[in-house]
């Protein structure tokens, strides 16, 4: 049973446009969510996080939105740049030390 789902395995966006990556979860106990970015042959690196007490968190070009009633979060990248091309993972935690990761979305930003 996949508790964290990223239903789009890949996404292509033109440089300068907005990239929207989506993540759905099933466990209503999740209270902390993160997005990681991963380049080939490297480990994931932290991008942005959000606590369940918020519905939005912004950091530069990256904004994460959380809709608790829909059990949905999204990552917006504006404007998208070719260097943003990577695999993006969302992850969730339910008051524990453990995170459940989604399967990832491969973003390709076209120059």
């Amino acid at each position: 049973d996949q508790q964290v789902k990223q239903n789009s395995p890949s996404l292509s966006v033109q440089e300068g446009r907005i990239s929207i990556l989506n993540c759905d979860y099933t466990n209503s106990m999740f209270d902390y969510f993160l997005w990681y970015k991963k380049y080939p042959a490297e480990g994931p690196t932290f991008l942005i996080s959000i606590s369940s007490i918020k519905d939005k968190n912004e950091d530069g070009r990256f904004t994460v939105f959380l809709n608790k009633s829909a059990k949905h979060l999204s990552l917006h990248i504006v404007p998208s740049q070719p260097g943003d091309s990577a695999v993006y993972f969302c992850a969730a935690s339910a008051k524990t030390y453990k995170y459940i990761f989604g399967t990832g979305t491969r973003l390709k930003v076209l120059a």
Partner: protein
Amino acid sequence: NAGVTQTPKFRVLKTGQSMTLLCAQDMNHEYMYWYRQDPGMGLRLIHYSVGEGTTAKGEVPDGYNVSRLKKQNFLLGLESAAPSQTSVYFCASSYPLPGAGQGSTDTQYFGPGTRLTVL
């Protein structure tokens, strides 16, 4: 400050062989984790540790053992490797969030990964 390092970067084993993957972190983090990444499966937690001398099972612990004898090191062992253990293994470490109280943790810092092939 090297962050999280993993040794080795690549390894090929034959079925039934054993090996140990070493993870080291120099950030004085309390928590450490071992994940495996397989195509279409995302990252799955194998084992984790919330402090020196403690370990706990994650989602997919079977076939693996771990030890955390020193705070900075977390070892992952395969006693008898199987082809199903062919994967990329990532180690991570983290602090708890300040004032978290109920177990939420800060971001995890990942190592570069170990690519293991079991023939």
